[in-house]
Structure formats: C-alpha cells, structure tokens
C-alpha cells in the first residue's frame, strides 16, 4: 500500500476534481466503471436469462443469439452471470468500503486527535488485525458465520478498516502539528468544530484514494473466495464464474476471458482512478542526475591584473531556478591561504554561490558563469569523474548542520576512511591511522571510541569536529564552510572557529566561510564579500569593512550583529524569499 500524503490545501478540492478529469487515464477509468455499473444495473433489460438456472442442454453452449456469450459448465447463461455477477462485485466492494470507513474513520479521527490510551489500544488491535491474512480470516468467518458473500464483505470491511484508520490517524496527526489547530483551540473553537473545519477538508482527498484501493482489494478478495468455492450457489459472481471456467479450461478456455476481463478491468480502473487523483494532488518526483553547468559566453579572457597566487576565480556566476534568479552575476576571488567571508542574510544567495563551486546544487538549478576556475583548472565543463577527483581532494566542504551530515548507517571511522582510501589510495590500516590522527587533531579526546561510534552516539559539537576532520582529510587547497557554527552551542562555536583557523593556517588552505554573523567574520576572515539578493554589494578587506562599511546594507548587517542578535531575518523587504539549500 502506498502511503498517501495528506493535502494541506482544502480549498483546492474543486480544482483537484478538474485536474483529475483532465487526465485521459482517469476519464477512461471512469468510463469503464460507468459501463460496469450500467451493465449490472440494467442486467434485467440486457438479458432475460436467470443467472442461477442450469439447463443441461446449454452446457458449454457456443455463442449464439439466445446465449450471446454461450453457456457455462453446468448450462447457465454466461452473459446473465456476467451482468448479475457485476452486481455482486460492485455491491460487495461498496459494502466493504462503507464498513471500512464507518469503522476506521471515526476511530482514526479520535485516535489521532486525542492520542492517549485510546490511541494505544486502537493501535494494538489494528496490529493484530493486520497480522492475519485477510483471506484466512474470511475462510474462518464463512465457515463459521455465513456463506453469504455480502455478509462476508461486511466482515471484510472490518478487516480492512485498519487501512482507513491508519490513513486518517496519520492525516489528523499531521494537521494537529500545524499551528492553526492550536490557534483555533486558543480562539475557543470546540473539538467537533475543529475537526469539521480544519481536519475534514484535509483528509477528504487521501480518503478518496484510499477508498478506490479498498474497493479494488475487496472485489479481488471476494472473487478469490468465490473462486475457492465459497459463497451461495444462488449468488452469481465473477469469482464463481472463474471457478467454473477453470474446471473447463481444457474444453472452453474462452469462459475464463469474460469474468477475468470484467474483474481485471474493474479493479484496474478503480486503482488507476485513485492514482490519477494522487497525481492531480502532486507527489515527489525523483531528482534526475543531470548536470547543467555551462559557460555564459565564450570563455572570458583571463583578466590581466590578477595576482599569481589566486586559488579560485569566479566571475559572472548566475544560478537560476526556472524564472527565479538566486545568484545574479557574482564575482569572487580567493587567494591561496586567504579566508574570504561571504556574508549576507538568509536567501541572499551565499550558500548557492558556495555550492556552485562544488557543483553540488540541486539538478533543477541552472548555473552559468563567465569563468569558474580553481587552481588553474576550469571547473565549467568538467565531467563527473574529474569533478569527483577534485571534490574532497582539491576542495573540502564543511556543512552547517553536523548531525544530518553524517550517514547514520555507517561508523564514523568508515566515513572518514572512505574518501582517503579513494583519493590518497591508502590501505585500510593507513587510512585508519590517519583518521585517528585527524580525530585527535580536531580535538577529540578519545579518537578510538569516536572512530568506532555511529553518528547518533556522539554530540553535535563532536560531529562538527568529525566533519571538519573529513573536510581536511585529503589535504584540500580550498575549504568551503557553509555556516559551520550556526547549529552549535555558543560555547562550542568559538572552539570550532579556533580549530578551523588553526587548521587553515597550518595547512595554508584558502577558505570561503559562508556566514550571516559578523562576529565570526571578525574572528577569522581576511577579506569579506557582502551579498544581498544574489549580488555582491561590497567586497573589501575585513578591517576596512569594520572601520567604514561603504554600502548601506553592510552597515545594517553590522549594526544588527553589534546589537547582539544574529542577523537571520530579512532586514529590508526581500525581493523574493528564496529557499536556501542549507536551510
């Protein structure tokens, strides 16, 4: 069963319906279902035969005027059984859906809304029901209670109620997390009102999808039971037809086709319809691995007056997502051994700039530049293998959030050793020795223990030290640090900055330090570039920036930092709040 994300846009229900109907698959499915419904409703008009009446002479009768689809193994009219059998399927499916929702929806609502002991008990019962194969339960029930397929479908509805329960409960939990339910509560709305106003609209679309699935499943299980020979002989059904056809498969294989086709098409239409609704709601598309980095113009002639020790040159860098340009013509230079602070508020494009150097932007990003070169090597137009040879080895990366940047499934030692074994071609033991040295170098008291640990077993500060060790492990010439201290405790921040500064000096690495915090800049940066709305508004040596900022925006950033609070929020009306990769 695919999980269904609850929609958060209740007002779009009508649009959802229209979008669904624009999907040709959905229209075909609706047509097929309509045809099946019409056929079974109009059964008495379409055939005069009694679907349960056997006529010996009609046994395996060929198709003819009086029997358009022939006779079955015991002389009953196939068309009549097909049409009346449709009734059994549709009624059965509907019963199951109604019962499943009547039982599952209210329980899921209460469980998700109030939690507590009720949720625990309901969850326990649900797990028990879901642990037993439905058809086995149905065998027991039909043996014990009734051979009537409709009664069986009521029971099946109860067995499938957990599917509905889980969906509704999950949706309600998701909505509850949203602040507006709390707000509604504070505003004095009663629980019933909150459920009706805020929760019901959200669960309707996923419920429709779930209903189509329950419907399809129920029809399949009902047919399976009838195929096994359960059910009353007086109740014509597609499953019973399949049973009869299967015993005559060597004499008259065509008998299998009609009920098989009817059942297959009904089930598929129902499922595909649910799928079309889901598509109309919109779901996650995979990110396709395709790199789009190219030169804006023919390679700009290298500017003449540049120092020979330049490590990174960026000129005319633009990053766009569709119509939205987040980096708009950025020029940057980092000299060997120099620390450049890239400063700006959230959404100013500083992280996007840093990631474009590593070629690590999401694939939807359109990256262009006049020049993007590292240590004399043109980064534009590198293939993935060349880029991989450079990442880690030439350019190291320190992320913002320590805990989410280590693979939770692998030991820290392995994660440190893997790039070294690849880039430096170290053996397992060499890599281990070097990893332990690195851990000790970044100030970890017990390297052996951390080497053996999984990420969830160490603290955030330690994890950041591990990530720094990883970034410098292959002796890169440039380090890109993306807000490396933002996620850390204030006490740890200073230590980590000190560590980065000392590593940078010791190894003579160039560094781009992305930050919003002028305190960090003052600590370690040689030069500063201030970004606003995708552009660099001011670039100068750090001392000069602090002494006399030339741009008004820089002044505002400086002022807000000096007042104490980190400058996170937009200071001036942002052109467009752009999501940063790092956030």
């Amino acid at each position, binding site marked *: 069963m695919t999980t269904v994300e609850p929609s958060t846009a209740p007002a779009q229900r009508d649009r959802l319906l229209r979008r669904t109907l624009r999907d040709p698959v959905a229209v075909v499915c609706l047509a097929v279902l309509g045809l099946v419904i019409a056929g079974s409703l109009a059964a008495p008009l379409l055939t005069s035969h009694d679907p349960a009446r056997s006529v010996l002479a009609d046994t395996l009768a060929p198709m003819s005027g009086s029997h358009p689809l022939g006779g079955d193994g015991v002389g009953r009219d196939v068309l009549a059984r097909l049409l009346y059998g449709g009734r059994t399927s549709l009624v059965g499916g509907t019963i199951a859906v109604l019962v499943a929702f009547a039982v599952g929806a209210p329980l899921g609502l209460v469980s998700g809304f109030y939690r507590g002991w009720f949720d625990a008990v309901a969850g326990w019962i649900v797990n028990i029901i879901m642990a037993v194969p439905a058809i086995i339960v149905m065998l027991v029930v039909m043996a014990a209670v009734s051979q009537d397929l409709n009664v069986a479908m009521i029971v099946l509805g109860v067995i499938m109620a957990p599917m509905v329960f889980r969906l509704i409960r999950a949706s309600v939990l998701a909505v509850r997390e949203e602040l507006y339910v709390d707000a509604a509560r504070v505003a004095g709305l009663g629980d019933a009102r909150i459920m009706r106003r805020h929760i019901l609209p959200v669960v309707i679309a996923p419920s429709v999808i779930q209903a189509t699935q329950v419907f399809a499943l129920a029809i399949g299980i009902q047919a399976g039971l009838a195929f*096994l020979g359960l059910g009353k002989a007086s109740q014509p059904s597609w499953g019973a037809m399949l049973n009869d056809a299967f015993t005559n498969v060597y004499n008259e294989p065509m008998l299998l086709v009609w009920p098989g086709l009817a059942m297959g098409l009904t089930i598929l239409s129902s499922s595909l319809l649910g799928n079309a609704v889901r598509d109309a709601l919109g779901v996650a598309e995979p990110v396709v691995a395709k790199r789009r980095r190219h030169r804006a113009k023919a390679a700009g002639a290298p500017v003449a007056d540049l120092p020979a020790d330049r490590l990174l040159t960026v000129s005319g860098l633009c990053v766009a997502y569709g119509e939205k340009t987040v980096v708009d013509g950025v020029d940057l230079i980092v000299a060997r051994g120099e620390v450049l602070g890239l400063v700006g508020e959230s959404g100013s494009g500083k992280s996007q700039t840093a990631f474009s150097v590593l070629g690590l932007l999401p694939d939807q990003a359109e990256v262009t530049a006049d020049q993007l070169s590292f240590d004399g090597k043109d980064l534009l137009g590198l293939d993935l293998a060349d880029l991989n040879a450079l990442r880690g080895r030439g350019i190291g990366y320190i992320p913002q959030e320590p805990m989410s940047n280590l693979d939770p499934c692998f030991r820290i030692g392995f994660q440190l050793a893997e790039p070294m074994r690849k880039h430096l071609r170290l053996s397992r033991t060499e890599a281990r020795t070097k990893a332990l040295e690195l851990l000790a170098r970044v100030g970890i008291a017990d390297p052996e223990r951390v080497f053996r640990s999984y990420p969830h077993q160490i603290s955030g500060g330690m994890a950041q030290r591990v990530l720094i060790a990883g970034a410098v492990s292959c002796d890169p010439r440039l380090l890109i640090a993306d807000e490396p201290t933002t996620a850390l405790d204030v006490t740890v921040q200073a230590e980590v900055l000190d560590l980065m500064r000392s590593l940078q000096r010791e190894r003579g690495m160039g560094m781009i330090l992305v930050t919003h915090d002028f305190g960090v800049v003052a600590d370690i940066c040689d030069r500063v570039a201030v970004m606003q709305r995708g552009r660099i508004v001011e670039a100068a040596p750090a001392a000069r920036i602090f002494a006399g900022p030339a741009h008004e925006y820089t002044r505002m950033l400086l002022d807000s930092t000096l007042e104490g609070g980190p400058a996170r929020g937009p200071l001036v009306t942002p052109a467009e709040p752009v999501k940063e990769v790092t956030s």
Partner: protein
Amino acid sequence: MLAFLFRRLAAGAVLVVVVATTTFLLLSLTGTDVARNILGETATQSAVTAKRHELGLDQPLVERYWHWAEHALQGNLGSSWFTGEPVNQSLTDTLPVTLSIVLAGMLVAAVLSVTLGTAAALRGGWVDRVVQFAAVLGTAVPSFLIALVLAVTLAVQLGWLPATGYVALGDSPGDWLRSITLPALSLAVAATAATAMQVRGALIDVLRADFVRTLRARGLTTRSVVFRHALRNAAPPALTVLALQFIGLIGGAVVVEKVFGLPGIGTLANSAAVRGDAPVLLGTVVVTVVIVVAVNLLLDIAYGWLNPKVRIS
C-alpha cells in the same frame, strides 16, 4: 536490541493467543450440527449423540477451549473431525508446499523491487513513469488472476511449465523449482509492486538528505553514494513494507494453490472451511500466525542489523 527482540517475541506470542482464541470462539458459535454433518442425514439420533460425545462437543465451551489450548501448548493440535487424521500430520504434509511458493515469491519480490525501485528513483523520466504505472497495476490485480493467466498461457497452452502438482525438493530439485515457479511468480507481483514503490520513495528521500550532499562533496563516486550509502539508508522502510507484504503473500497462496493444484496449507484450510472441520481450520490459522510472527521476527533482526540506532540502544 535483545530487549527489543524479546518485546517483539512477547507481542508475537500474545498475537498467537488472541487469534487462536478468537478463531476458536468463532468456530464454536456456528449453529450447524457438526456431528450430524459428519454422519449424514440418515444417521440415527443416538449415533449422532455418540459422535458428539466423541468429539467432546457436549462439553461446555470453556472446557473445550482449555482442552484444546492445553494440547496445543504441548504441540498437539488435535485431529480432523471428518477424517480423524492428526492436524499436526496434515500441517507437516502441507507446510513445505506453501513455504516453498511463499518464500520463493518473497525472494523474487525482494530482488525485483530493489532493482525496479532503484532504477525509477535514479533514472526518473520515462523509466520512473513506467515503473510507477506497472506498480499500480501490480498492486491492484489479485494474485490469483495473475496465476490464472500464467497457468492458462504458459502451462496449459504453451506447456513450458507444469500446470498442476508439486514435487518435493528432496525428490527432485529441478522439478521442485519447475513446480513452484509459476505460483511463486504470481504471488511475487503484488509484493514487488508495493515494495518497489517504497524503495523508490525512500531512495528519493535519502538522495535529498544532507549527508548525501556531503558524501558527494567528499568526491565519492555515484556508485558508492547510491549503492553503499543511500540504498542502505533506504532499506529499513522498504523492509517494513516487505514484512507487511509477506502476510498478503500467505493470503494469496490460499487461492494460488487452488489454481495450480498444490496441496498446501491454503488448500487444507479451504477444504476444512468448506466442510466445517474446525480443528483443521484452527490448526492452519494458528500455524499461519506463528509463521507470520516468525518471519516478522527475522525481519526485525534484519532491520536492527541495517539500522544501528535500533541495534545499539
């Protein structure tokens, strides 16, 4: 981890007891006169009474339940009301058949779902659309309909594989494989479809995770990032779905066995249900639930092995 497994084992035991008790009660509440059904319409009333006594049906319900439960705990599930054959014997005969097709189906589903789900997540575009569409079809169509189509086309019409019958693994491994191929494939379709979608979804999520970007920034190859790191992280949720699918597979086996004429547990349960043979039906239900619990326990262990957070705590 041990405490976790112990809890799961205890929960499994409770599940078996609850299901067995419920089933026992349900089967005891039928209005039909079993002794009369066994002996036929012509039997005398005294013979029916004697039969009822023989089966213990004249005892109070609670006593009958204790009697059954006591024996069941000692591993004796009673005898068939109709044939007198010990239920244990019937189960020993039929279980290998069902386990063969269900476990083979699980294996096929595991391999195919990882392949298809990974392809869909990595390639995107038309590959993704085809896999998604096929998955919708695969989850929707009941396994026995697939079994019917396979049986009629590949077995009956083309004669490539046997249409009916089971050959024990010990008798002839080759024939065993031939006899379970089509049933296992029919069962695997739905599980493959559902699990492939889970693999796809989980992999897409993991590939967007921060640590994947950091691994890329370290210069690791796509092969290492995807197959060593991302797939490993995507495995636990996929495994959870596969565990749920196993329950569906056992249910599907009941009908699929009939299609291929396999003398498995489903066939046993079905004939017992049609006759109203309570001890046999009860025995098959209990064994089914025990298998479900056992497989879930195995998958829990695998889950813990894949997920260090569960293993170390």
